[in-house]
């Protein structure tokens, strides 16, 4: 699974962890986040602005 980094504020969405506060269960893949997803911390970065950070061995 991968992690996705907000280029503005450094927020990281890790697919294995999800984001409990925002209601994304652990294991929720990036592709399943809503299309209008914006960074939960800075609200500046749209989904397509995030960069994939690393690939753990799946």
């Amino acid at each position, binding site marked *: 699974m991968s992690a996705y980094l907000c280029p503005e*504020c450094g927020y990281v969405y890790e697919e294995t962890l999800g984001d409990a506060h925002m*209601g994304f269960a652990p294991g929720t893949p990036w592709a399943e986040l809503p299309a209008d997803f914006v960074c939960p911390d*800075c*609200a*500046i970065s*749209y989904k397509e602005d995030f960069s994939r950070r690393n690939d753990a061995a799946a």
Partner: protein
Amino acid sequence: MNSSALASELPSEYVDHKRHLWLFSLLVPCIALIGPLMYLFVSPKLLWLWLPTLFSYLVIPVLDAIIGEDRSNPPEDAVPGLEADPYYRYVTFALVPILWVSFLVSVVFIGTQDLPWHGVLAVIIAAGGTLGYGLNLGHEMGHKKTTLERWLAKVTLALGFYGHFFVEHNRGHHRDVATPADPASSRMGESIYRFVFREMPGAFFRAWDLEAERLDRCGKSVWSLQNEIIQPALISIVLYGVLVAFLGLEMIPVLLLIAFWGAFQLTQANYIEHYGLLRKQQPNGRYERCQPYHSWNSNHLFSNWALFHLQRHSDHHAHPTRRYQSLRDFPDLPRLPNGYFGMYLIAYFPSLWFKIMDKRLLEAVNRDPSRINFEPAKRERLMRQYGLEEVAKVTDDAGVAA
């Protein structure tokens, strides 16, 4: 990433001249205490009670005009060190109890002194100002990522019954800023008296919808204690309930008026921060990223001390999680002629506001109507009045790229 290495090497070279001056941020919000304290301990003269209001509306704008602007910026490589320095955080923490005490003293003063209506009004306005500083502090801390700062933000916003701001601002306003969809961005031709009817309810319902959506994903009811609007609201209910229980039912309208005047401080700030500026909609329906030219700025030294650099608003919207001490000024930004306090006063007189700001707005957007957020009903009249023409699409795009 070598930012941590930079943080340990560079601060020795850079000295923040404003470091200790940030303590002004603790002093200015104490101003509401002056009226009741002078009245109780010097002489029971009602004029004392108007001192805080006089200070906000006359002294601060004059100090801004005299002391002037501050163009200094921390160098970018000193920013990680500044952000990591806990001193700046402690200043914001220290303001939380100051604001609570200031608010409580004002309310208890009204509840226990025999004052004529205009004496009560003076203290209501001063206490509302205290709540305004609370909204500013809640704003600064609510943007941060630590649990402590987020909770302190809620505790501070609860003072003015305005806890939903925490949700509304971070996840709503910053996403929609400078677009017609944003109830917290004012439009060209919109007076503050019209704006407040769009801003206050619009902000609340956007916050509620954002929380409903989040809690639905979490599998919880919108009425759960996880609702970040309900959490601070409960603090407010207990606080206001205790005050009414001790001071009497007649305090209900007083508390409501103070809370309204506090919320109106935020309305005023929202009104002047993005007046008429518009992000362009892209072919995919998304708005262009919020750019520095989508916010109005004021670099006036004194009011920035009072407001934790809120007036360096462009950098705040470009980097919302950046701490106040690191916010920067840039040349050629849309610029207000005075600090926020002076601009609030101007906004009370819509024709004066339009006269001063419409000219500046047109200059800021290069007279390009596609970059103006118009009050829809006034669009045609304003286009005619200022001789604006729709720019053809091709030149329009070239103009933006240039």
